[in-house]
């Protein structure tokens, strides 16, 4: 390890290692600092992605795919099930391995990764971020760099230290808890299940995602609004006791999902933010793996160019490029989320009843949202933008 790199990335999740891979691929030196001892662990994620999303970055490989998904099952508060065949295949990942393989890709491209490296401050030079201060296995260290990239997740502090307002409104933070459960014989391994309604998941959804070998991720998130009164853990325990009282729990993990639009500023002089740290999460689904990797790819390419051309100001291009690729789309999703967020149980039940009359071959996610928002015409425009006009 040197004391100077062109770029330092803080955090070795999918966004961080993807950023590093695209920087190193341009022959620019990059070091990734990870506070935990492993890349890819602990996994704080439901692990669902689309095949197409993954394929932009890596060829699908069964060693990190737990299950292949071809339909959604949405369960209304009264128990009525709506089956939605998917137009695109989905995967439930084994992120422990997936994240690790992404780390390998970055290293193969020429990046360096250092684990057990806890970044606790930035170095400034004339008002510009010029490096990081960190503790590595008990030893204080400093690295100077032309650019620092914060990929430090939902708990991001790197942006704050550079003066960006990065904290999430507690009402938009989905505080989640998930168990991986074994011995489930009655769930289909090709289906993602979503439960809606006040009983199981007010202002959100509860998910059951298959993990192969009769196991599944079962989890839910609640916003701080709900969390004031009752925790995510208490909702999850209630669901498990009612539906899977004899479930064998293999692991339990907590995590936060910033279900909000991207931060207004994701760059500052010498600094860029990617992934959950930039709030590059689909606010409707809470999905952030692929969108974080897309953010990382855009940021990585621009950072490499800024270094190679010795034009630090180029990093501001990242904001516009991200906005055109996904930021704008996330604002649409956010408006749709606001529209359906407060639906009553009766409303969910009536949507399920109406959509179950649609013949199977005509069912699409876009049609489902149209059914859901039929009495809310202003939002139909947002639905059309997201689901009908594909980019």
């Amino acid at each position, binding site marked *: 390890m040197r004391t100077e790199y062109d770029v330092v990335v803080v955090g070795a999740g999918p966004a961080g290692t993807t950023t590093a891979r695209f920087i190193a691929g341009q022959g620019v030196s990059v070091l990734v600092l990870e506070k935990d001892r492993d890349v890819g662990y602990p996994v704080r994620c439901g692990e669902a992605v689309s095949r197409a999303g993954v394929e932009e970055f890596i060829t699908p490989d069964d060693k990190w795919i737990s299950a292949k998904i071809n339909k959604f099952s949405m369960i209304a508060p009264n128990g009525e099930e709506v089956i939605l065949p998917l137009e695109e295949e989905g995967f439930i990942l084994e992120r422990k391995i997936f994240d690790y393989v992404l780390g390998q890709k970055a290293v193969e491209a020429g990046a360096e990764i250092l684990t*057990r490296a806890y970044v606790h401050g930035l170095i400034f030079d004339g008002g510009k971020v010029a490096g990081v201060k960190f503790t590595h296995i008990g030893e204080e260290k400093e690295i100077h760099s032309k650019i620092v990239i914060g990929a430090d997740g*939902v*708990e991001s502090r790197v942006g704050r230290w550079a003066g960006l307002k990065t*904290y999430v409104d507690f009402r938009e*933070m989905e*505080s989640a808890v998930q168990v991986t459960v074994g011995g489930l014989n009655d769930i289909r391994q090709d289906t993602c299940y979503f439960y809606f309604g006040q009983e199981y998941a007010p202002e959100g959804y509860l998910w059951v995602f298959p993990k192969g070998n009769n196991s599944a991720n079962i989890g839910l*998130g*609640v916003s701080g609004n709900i969390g004031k009164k009752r925790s995510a853990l208490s909702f999850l325990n209630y669901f498990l006791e009612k539906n899977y009282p004899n479930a064998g729990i293999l692991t339990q993990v*907590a995590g936060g999902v910033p279900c909000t639009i991207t931060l207004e500023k994701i760059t500052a002089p010498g600094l860029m933010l990617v992934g959950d740290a930039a709030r590059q999460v689909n606010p409707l689904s809470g999905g952030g793996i692929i969108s974080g990797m897309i953010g990382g790819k855009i940021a990585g390419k621009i950072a490499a160019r800024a270094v190679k051309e010795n034009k630090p100001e180029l990093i501001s291009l990242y904001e516009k490029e991200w906005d055109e690729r996904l930021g704008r789309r996330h604002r649409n999703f956010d408006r749709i989320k606001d529209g359906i967020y407060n639906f009553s149980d009766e409303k969910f039940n009536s949507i399920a009843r109406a959509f179950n009359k649609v013949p199977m071959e005509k069912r699409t996610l876009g049609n489902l949202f149209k059914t859901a928002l039929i009495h809310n015409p202003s939002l139909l425009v947002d639905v059309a933008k997201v689901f009908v006009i594909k980019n």
Partner: protein
Amino acid sequence: MLLIEITPDKCDFCGCCVGVCPEDAIELKEAEITIDEKLCTNCAKCVWSCPIEVLQFNKEKAAEVKNANRV
């Protein structure tokens, strides 16, 4: 005075509380969490956002402080 209490043994170190803290008062390492009393304003947003009930707002202590201030 700090009125937010952490039970570190319960903590999963997930970072929800850090993400919602407006004051940057919470420090999270791989398996270590602390609140900086000098920065914390006792707003309780971290308490509401903790998925697994690790953080609590100490109401009795808050009432004591209030009473003491009255005297």
